[in-house]
């Protein structure tokens, strides 16, 4: 923690990109344009599973106005037997996800792409491409995909020596669960299912790409990582990274779903072939059929506790849908499921299951809500069985500093218990409930993340400040960076401009994900600013002809200190900037680091619902989330993350799901039928920020964006139980399912 005063850290300042965002002038990817630009479109598989025997593009190429056509043969192949990791992704699957290679693996899987003078011509050209499909048996749901006679998606995937749709496994063990269960007075276990849900960003994927004749490539796109865009596009097109400049357009929501590429490599190849800038924008239907979502799941969780409420054993098995290619977030599910608790005996087992639906992408705390949901539901039953308040039971078993988590690490100072204590002490906990109303609680954990980050802090000639960082800003991180820089320099935050650099203008920075952005950029911005302050002291010392050690930096000016105190008039940032040339040149500093020390985030949620017993509608009446946020550098945007995560969880718990028709096609690929929460569905979402600063960060930042989604599903489900006396083991708790449960009672 820095020792400085907190004039700006913790203030609700106006975001640096605010005026553009409220006047419509902010440039999102689909808003970009270039002289000579043409339009790209993707031809997608009409089948959920089909071998591609051949593609004839000759009629499309002959259509007037068509400038280029590409298919899998234009994209660099990554053979299936050689893993090529890029971050948490594997290029074997990325190359097959952006364009079907041997087989189309889901309805909507790209099989070819066209660039033409207009969108209408490009669409017509797509319809002229002839694909010779051998339609194959398909499988969508986990329970079908793991059956012995299930259609196998990939010959190269084997499980226990046999071809299988189980494409990965992860396991965490601590202690001896059998011995733990033997010690328990109460053992409760159930099986649960959750459905795949889409990240639901309002901005569809979009990009504009221009490839010059010498291979110099410029990409404007909506992504959570311009360096990820550069690296993946480079690997899939064989254009060196040094020749690709990826510019981060403003991003209209990502939530994890924009941590991989879909369109950029296709637009790059189309631009290279056509010699024209190519723009591609997905329709909402394409977004729903072919991007995201997070996994659906099938899980079994068993927990044992003693009569006095001590949890002695926990066991969980989690099957997660990966979509058509391997790679579901089983780590998040298996590791986060039991993480809030100090349990001596834990066995957590996860399986990755492929099936004929779109490949999953990260979604806010990937896997963690899927792991937490069954655990938090079973804990609710255990608390009831032993007659203990569910919060008191959580408090009794709360992980704290020194607890060894089942997934490996020993926790440093964490704030989980404080979230439970805050919930117990909150008026919400004791507020009265009416008929058909109920209250539920649940907790959750997310790892948080550090990783590579770069910053450049420059003092302008007129004595103001420009900070450039490398992580796209999805929810106000620029405002927090302005607060930190202003704090360290002792100047008004409005004198600090914060920009997100492109891949040519700022050093490598890992993508916006894992709740890393303010943790990582806070460190490199702090170190850069500290270097700038040290330079400013040296410049003042030079002017005064004294030792730099005898100069302090306070309130935005250099002051002589010690024996020299009061001997010279202070020099302001403006004055030092004005004299920069004579004192040694431009003033600025950059730092590039692999940041470490991000510590876990914990949250506890409390939710009141009312069930309309005639219509089966569950309405959320009141919601309070309690979270250890480390340090709220900009409280409004921390609250915003907490509220946004809760809203997404409410959608996941109550309404959101894909509906497949009998042919393996998504039947609700739009916002009308894929029902995300709307204004009139939600109450105000109350937040209680608990600040237990992360000792490993200069401002105490922990990362706040993802854990707010983790407890939500179970908090709502436990509230529905409290209202109706019916326990749901399957999400979403949509009106038809609620009515079915109610009718079963009668």
């Amino acid at each position, binding site marked *: 923690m820095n020792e400085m005063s907190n004039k700006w850290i913790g203030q609700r300042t106006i975001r640096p990109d605010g005026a553009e965002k*409220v006047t419509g002038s902010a440039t999102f990817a689909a808003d970009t344009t270039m002289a000579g630009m043409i339009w790209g479109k993707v031809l997608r598989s009409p089948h959920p599973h089909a071998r591609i025997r051949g593609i004839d593009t000759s009629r499309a190429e002959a259509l007037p106005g068509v400038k280029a056509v590409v298919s899998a043969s234009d994209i660099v192949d990554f053979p299936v037997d050689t893993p090529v990791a890029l971050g948490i992704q594997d290029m074997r699957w990325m190359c097959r996800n952006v364009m079907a290679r041997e087989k189309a693996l889901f309805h909507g899987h790209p099989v070819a792409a066209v660039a033409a003078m207009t969108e209408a011509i490009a669409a017509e050209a797509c319809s002229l491409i002839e694909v010779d499909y051998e339609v194959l048996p398909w499988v969508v749901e986990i329970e079908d995909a793991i059956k012995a006679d299930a259609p196998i998606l990939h010959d190269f995937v084997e499980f226990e020596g046999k071809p299988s749709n189980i494409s990965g496994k992860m396991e965490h063990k601590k202690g001896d669960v059998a011995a733990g269960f033997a010690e328990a007075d109460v053992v409760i276990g159930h099986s649960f299912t959750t459905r795949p849900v889409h990240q639901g960003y309002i901005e*569809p994927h979009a990009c504009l790409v221009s490839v010059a004749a010498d291979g110099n490539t410029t990409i404007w796109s909506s992504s959570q990582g311009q360096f990820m865009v550069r690296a993946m596009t480079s690997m899939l097109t064989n254009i060196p990274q040094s020749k690709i400049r990826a510019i981060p357009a*403003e991003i209209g929501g990502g939530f994890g779903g924009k941590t991989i590429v879909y369109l950029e490599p296709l637009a790059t190849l189309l631009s290279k072939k056509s010699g024209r800038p190519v723009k591609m924008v997905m329709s909402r239907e394409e977004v729903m059929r072919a991007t995201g979502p997070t996994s659906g799941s099938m899980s079994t969780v068993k927990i044992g506790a003693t009569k006095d409420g001590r949890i002695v054993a926990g066991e969980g098995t989690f099957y997660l849908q990966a979509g058509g290619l391997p790679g579901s977030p089983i780590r998040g599910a298996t590791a986060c499921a039991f993480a809030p608790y100090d349990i001596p005996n834990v066995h957590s087992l996860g399986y990755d299951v492929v099936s004929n639906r779109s490949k999953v992408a990260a979604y806010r705390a990937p896997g963690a809500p899927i792991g937490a949901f069954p655990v938090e539901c079973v804990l609710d039953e255990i608390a009831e069985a032993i007659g203990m308040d569910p919060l008191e039971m959580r408090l009794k078993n709360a992980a704290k500093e020194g607890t060894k988590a089942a997934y490996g690490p020993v926790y440093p100072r964490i704030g989980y218990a404080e979230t439970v204590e805050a919930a117990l002490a909150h008026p919400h906990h004791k507020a009265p409930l009416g008929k058909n109303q109920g209250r539920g609680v649940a907790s959750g954990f997310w790892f948080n993340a550090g990783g590579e980050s770069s910053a450049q802090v420059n003092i302008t000639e007129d004595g103001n400040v420009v900070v450039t960082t490398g992580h796209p800003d999805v929810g106000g991180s620029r405002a927090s960076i302005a607060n930190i820089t202003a704090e360290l320099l002792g100047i008004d935050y409005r004198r600090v401009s914060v920009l997100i650099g492109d891949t040519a203008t700022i050093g490598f920075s890992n993508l916006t994900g894992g709740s890393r952005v303010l943790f990582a950029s806070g460190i490199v911005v702090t170190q850069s600013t500290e270097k700038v302050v040290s330079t400013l002291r040296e410049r003042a010392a030079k002017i005064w002809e004294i030792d730099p050690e005898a100069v302090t930096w306070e309130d935005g000016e250099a002051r002589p200190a010690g024996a020299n105190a009061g001997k010279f008039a202070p020099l302001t940032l403006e004055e030092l900037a004005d004299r920069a040339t004579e004192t040694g040149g431009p003033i600025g500093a950059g730092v590039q680091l692999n940041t470490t020390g991000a510590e876990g985030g914990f949250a506890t949620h409390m939710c009141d619902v009312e069930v309309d017993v005639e219509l089966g509608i569950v309405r959320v009446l009141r919601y309070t989330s309690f979270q250890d946020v480390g340090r709220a550098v900009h409280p409004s945007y921390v*609250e*915003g993350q907490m509220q946004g995560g809760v809203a997404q969880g409410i959608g996941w718990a109550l309404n959101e799901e894909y509906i497949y028709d009998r042919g393996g096609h998504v039947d609700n690929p*739009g916002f009308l039928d894929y029902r995300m929460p709307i204004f*009139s569905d939600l109450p105000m979402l109350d937040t209680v920020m608990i600040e237990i600063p992360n000792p490993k960060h200069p401002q105490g930042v922990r990362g706040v964006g993802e854990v707010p989604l983790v407890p939500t599903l179970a908090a709502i489900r436990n509230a529905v139980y409290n209202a109706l006396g019916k326990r749901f083991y399957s999400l979403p708790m949509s009106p038809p399912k609620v009515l079915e449960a109610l009718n079963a009672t009668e």
Partner: protein
Amino acid sequence: MAKLHVSANINGEPTEFLCEPYETMLDVLRNELGLTGSKEGCGSGDCGACSITLDGRLVCSCLMLAAEAEGGEIRTIEGMAEGDTLHPLQQKFLELAALQCGICTPGVLIAAKSLLEQNPDPSETEVRFWLAGNLCRCTGYDKIVRAVLETAADMKEASR
């Protein structure tokens, strides 16, 4: 088929444009007139990111044919501030952090302005139902609703 010639008043400016009969108002605003503040989130009238007003009425520009603008008066997000003076709603959205990514913000602001023109003193429920046609995935709506209610209160106070 020949393009259609359309004359309309857009954000106070007499404007002429040519469009295909099938083109939407949103396509023309974004691709012909350079007014990219209106966004396409769905193209089916479900998300409200393309909200504009036509002759004072709130509409989804993705559901309106451009040719229907003939003789009409259109206001978009680009016409909401006066010069460098933000509309009170725009200012309040910044003060209360009622946006995160900002993609839905233009549509929400247009819809909220339209609400306050018709109902200067809305209840929370009225705000939520009026804005039910505008999707936001980032904020959970809380800060947006507060910003609209506070703006209404400020404007009422100012008009006294």
